[in-house]
Each structure stands twice: as C-alpha cells, then as structure tokens.
C-alpha cells in the first residue's frame, strides 16, 4: 500500500478511531514501512510532550457564586425600569433606524438649503431673539416673583456656586449668608431695561456670592455675629445695601480665594458651623486659617484617627495638654481650629507623630522581604541562564522565567532572605551589571492575599507557606543583549 494513502490515517490509528478493516490495513503497512513507523513514533512523542505541559491555575468562582451572580443580574434586569426604558429605546432606534436616519438627513438637508439660499441671516437673528427673550422672560419672571414676595432672589443664586461636592458645603453656607444681599442690587436696577436687567441677573450668581462673602468679611471685626440668614434675611441684606460697585472687583477676587480655601473643609465642619449658628464671620475666620494652613490640613486630615496611637508611642511631653484640647476641638468642630491660635500652631507636631508611627510599622513590615532588580548585559543568554539556575540551586531557591511578547525578558530568583546577599554576589559575577536596585517590601501585604486565593482555589490549607512568604526575597535579573 502506498504511504500517501495511509499517512492521514496514522493519527486516527493511534487514537483508535479507525474501523477494524482499515485498522488492520494500516497495521500491516506499518510492519513493512519504516517511514510510517517513524511517523507513528513522532506523533506519539508529540502527544506526550503536549500532555506534559500544564497551564496556569484558573481563578474561577464556585458554582454557587455563579448561580448567585446570574440571579442578581436577572433580578436587576427585571426590576430596573430605567434599564428597561433604555433597552426599549435602543430596540426602537434599531428597528426604525433607517427611517430615523432618513428623517434626520432630510432635516439636515433642508437646513443646509435654507442657509445656502440666503435665509441664514434672518434665521439666525430670529432664533437668537427668541432665545434672548425667552431667557430674559424667565429671569424677569423669577425676579418679579421674588420682589413681590419681598424675598431676596435666592432661587437662581442658590444653584450658583456649583457645589459639585458635598464636601464643599461650606460654599453653600457662604452662599446662604449672601442670599439676601442680592436684593438691593436688584432693587437698584429695577428701572433698567429688560436687556440690562437680564445682564444683571446673569451676573447675579457671582456678585451675590461676592457680596455674601465680602459682607461677612466687612462684618468680621464687629461682634456679635449676625443671626443665620434664614431667620432674618432682611437684617443681613440691609447691611449690604451700602456696598459700592467699585469694591466688587477686589471683593470678587477675595471671594474666589476664600472659596478655594473653603474647599478644604469637610461637610462635617460646615455642618458644625451651621449648628453653632455661626455667621459668615466664623466662616471667614475658618477660611482664613485654612488658607494659611491649607497644605498642613491636607496632610493632617487623613491621619486624624491616629493621634491616640501617636501619643501612646511618643509618651507624655510638655504641650500635650494643648494637643489634647485641640484634638477634642477638632473632633467637635473644625471651625474652632481656626479660632484658636495655639491649636493651629500645634498642627504640624500632630501631623508628624502619626507619620512616624506609620513609618515604624512599615519598617517592621519591610524587614520581611527584599526585592532586588539587576540589569545585566550579556551576549549569551543561555549561558547566563544556566549559571543562574546553578546559583538558585546552590542558594536553595526557586527560579522562574518571565516572558513578555514570547521572549524571555527576565529571570526571577526567589531565595531565603538570609541567602540574599550571597546570591547577589554570585549573580553580579554572571555578567556586566548595568543597574542594580534593591527595595524592601512587605510580602505580607502584597503577596499573602494572592497566595491565599491560590490556596483557596486549590482547596488547600496554607501549610508552611507563611514561613516562605516572610522569609523569602526575590532577585529579578533583566537582560540586555
């Protein structure tokens, strides 16, 4: 029998996938043909080679988790009317895609045609007039409403300060104080034309805020602070009637700065301010203090939960009483922070102590592991690899290839930390060291989680792993040819 006729059946012969008659034919041929026998052996070897290769362990959920996931997904689908609406809209669009597109195209063409034929100017003018008049009428309407009610124009102003974040609620606070201040300006401009009025109203946002903040600034030295604006808006508004337009620019700048500073304060702080029925005066003082210590505050804030630890570690020392008082104050209200000069002076010390503690804790962790990265220039990667294998073997370590884009780019050697120095000495001899960088790292934080996950997948208890994690260090050898 010809080899060409039988060769494609050789794999099937190996796999026992041939019919009996065909199988006996192939068997007979193999007894006589050396090439085909060789081929059979090759195929067998390839199979065993392929099967010897493992693949990475997957990180898959359990069956129950998957069921729960699907259940929650389907529940969401059923219960969310918004999603349903979106889906139906999406479906509608795709169903009538052609007609929608045709209509849109036709509309565009008509508009273009009008523009070309000289109607463009008239059209634009008409449109802008409409826009303007509608905008003016809306604003005018709201103004009239407010004036008739004898209530300052707060509605538009209340939305002004673009309080994007809840943390910026101090801005809202400042604005509340400023709300009544808008009224005199509007009264003054009552006789003006509609257009001018609209212009004024459009500027109302910033001027109102400026007025509010500056009013607070002006009132700053005069205790006692005025009551909250919601209680008595007139009182505050009266105080602002005398504000000169020439001041407004300066004040505007100042107000902007103040607002920037106020962003440092948290929502809680703003809340506290309002609870204590502080007026804009207090807000101003806080803002000032904050602006002075802005950078300090930013660093201190995250660590504010740590002073207790810091105190324990550092022990009692003079000035602690001040700190203690200040701590209590800070927890209550940050507005007091600004009021008390010694407290604000003590801030940096407070910031240092937790940082030191954190450093100390980190240092303890760092002792667990080291990671060295060495860049070695080499001509023969194979030789280096063999040498590194021997080094790893001698130092009781593991060796791992790192592959990027199908090329072996580096070799990772994991050795006991006690053997790290010896290993490094040996590795340095392998080739010309271009760069070396050692850093300590916390294995417990970085790798423990991953390894725990691995154990979870394997359903094994992490026996003896702890020892390995805490006592092993790594050297990553990067090659440059």
């Amino acid at each position, binding site marked *: 029998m010809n080899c060409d006729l039988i060769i494609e059946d050789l794999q099937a012969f190996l796999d026992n996938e041939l019919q009996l008659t065909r199988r006996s034919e192939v068997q007979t041929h193999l007894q006589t043909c050396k090439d085909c026998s060789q081929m059979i052996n090759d195929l067998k070897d390839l199979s065993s080679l392929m099967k010897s290769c493992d*693949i990475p362990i*997957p990180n898959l959920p359990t069956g129950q988790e998957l069921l729960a996931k699907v259940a929650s997904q389907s529940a969401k689908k059923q219960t969310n009317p918004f999603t349903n609406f979106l889906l139906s809209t999406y479906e509608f669009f795709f169903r009538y895609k052609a007609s929608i597109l045709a209509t849109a195209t036709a509309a565009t063409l008509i508009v273009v045609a009008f523009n070309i034929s000289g109607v463009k100017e008239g059209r634009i003018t008409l449109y802008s007039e409409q826009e303007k008049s509608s905008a003016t009428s809306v604003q005018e309407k709201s103004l009239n409403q407010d004036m008739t009610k004898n209530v300052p124009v707060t509605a538009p102003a209340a939305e002004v300060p673009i309080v994007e974040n809840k943390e910026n609620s101090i801005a809202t606070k400042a604005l509340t104080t400023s709300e009544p201040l808008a009224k005199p300006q509007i009264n003054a401009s009552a006789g003006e034309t509609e257009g001018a009025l609209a212009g004024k109203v459009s500027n109302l946002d910033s001027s109102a805020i400026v007025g509010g903040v500056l009013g607070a600034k002006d009132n700053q030295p005069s205790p006692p602070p005025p009551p909250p604006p919601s209680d008595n808006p007139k009182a505050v508004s009266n105080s602002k009637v005398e504000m000169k337009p020439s001041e407004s620019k300066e004040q505007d700048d100042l107000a902007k700065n103040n607002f920037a500073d106020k962003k440092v304060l948290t929502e809680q702080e703003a809340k506290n301010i309002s609870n204590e029925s502080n007026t804009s005066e207090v807000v101003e003082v806080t803002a000032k203090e904050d602006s002075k210590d802005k950078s300090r505050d930013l660093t201190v804030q995250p660590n504010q939960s740590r002073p207790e630890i810091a105190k324990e570690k550092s022990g009692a020392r003079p000035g602690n009483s001040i700190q203690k008082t200040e701590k209590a104050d800070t927890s209550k209200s940050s507005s007091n922070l600004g009021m008390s000069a010694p407290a604000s002076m003590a801030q940096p010390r407070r910031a240092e102590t937790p940082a030191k503690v954190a450093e100390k804790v980190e240092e303890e962790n760092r002792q667990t592991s080291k990671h060295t990265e060495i860049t070695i220039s080499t001509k023969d990667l194979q030789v280096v690899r063999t040498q590194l294998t021997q080094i790893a073997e001698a130092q009781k370590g593991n060796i791992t*290839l790192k592959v990027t884009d199908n090329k072996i780019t580096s070799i990772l050697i994991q050795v006991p930390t006690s053997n790290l120095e010896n290993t490094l000495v040996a590795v340095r001899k392998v080739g010309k060291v271009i760069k070396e960088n050692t850093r300590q790292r916390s294995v417990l934080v970085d790798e423990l989680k991953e390894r725990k996950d691995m154990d979870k997948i394997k359903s094994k208890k992490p026996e003896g792993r702890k020892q390995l994690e805490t006592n092993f260090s790594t050297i990553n050898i990067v090659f440059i040819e």
Partner: protein
Amino acid sequence: MSKSDEELMQQFQTGNETAFVTIYERYKLAIYRFLYRRLGNQARAEDITQEVFVAIIEHCREWRQESSFKTYLYRIAHNRAISEIRRSEYKVMVDADNEANAERVSKVAAPNSSPATSLEQQELQIKVQRALMMVEIEYREPIILREYEELSYEEISAILEIPIGTVKSRIFRGKVELKKLLEPMLSNTPEQVRKPPNVGLSSGVSDNIRT
C-alpha cells in the same frame, strides 16, 4: 454511582441548583483548559469560561438532549471563543503579561522539583503553547479537543460541525505543522536533554505530506 451529565442537566432544568454545581465542578477546568489553549490568555479564558456557564444557566431550558451535554457545552465554548477572537482580533500567541502566569506555571509545574528542572519545564511549556498558537486555527481546535480534552472524533465533529473525515485529517495535518514549528524551537535549547526523543519528523515522510 455518579449521575450522568444529561441526568444532572435534567435535574437542573427542574430547578435543582446542586445539579448545576456538580456539572460546573465537573467541567469548569476542562472548559477553561480548552479556552486557555485556544486563546492563549488566562484572563480571557477565565472570563469566557464563566460566560459559558452563565449561558448554560440562562438557557438551560433550551437544551433538548439532541446531542450529549458535553458536546453542547463545548460547542458553546467554541462559539464564544470564536466571537471573542472576532471581537478583539486577538492573536497574541502567549500571554503578553505573562509575568504573573510564569510564576503560576512554575507553581503548577513542579513545586518540589529542582530549579533546573522547573526552569526546563517552564521553557517547554512556553514553547509548546507558542507553537500551538502558531498553528492554523482550523487545525488548532481539533488538536486541542483531541489531545488535551480527549474527545472522540465524533464529538469533535459535532462540536466543530465538520465531517469526521475532516476532523481526522485536520488533527493529523495540525500535528505535523506543530512538529515543524516545535523542531527549531526545541533544537535551540542549550541542553539536548530538554529535547524529547524523536521529536523531529523523519524527512522522508514529512516531504510526502502536503500541509
């Protein structure tokens, strides 16, 4: 005695979730292996494995026992893999971010072996996977299903929806191609120990094969 896949699937159709968990535990690794070797990327293989079983859950009532459950499952996996490849035009041979993988491979390979053996094993795995990803896709799938998943020619035929004769020839041709690709890779290794015996094709035979 353990229940058959079909029995379990029937139970799941009636609302028995434990039956699904059993099926999932039985096949999750097989499907993952298939997808990993098909796509060459662990993260994608994991994602699509989940997708396959999610599809089983969502469309469990659509299974009518026309084919075996195993075939049905692999067909879903095969279709998902095709969609994934089309969607992303993903043709990376071995994981680009193999940093994590390399470590994992080594852990799988030989936890107690010496560094030299471990290194050899890792290299071999990388090379085989690389070569496999270079084999034409129409040959690759039947090879994976046959060699790794040990499915019968009939099952492969049903999954890939091609005649049995085509399965047979594709497996053979694919393996010849794989050998050709592996030959230079394995001969480049410094130590000949790594090269398995008789890996190279005998020239007389290989010349006769038109791949």
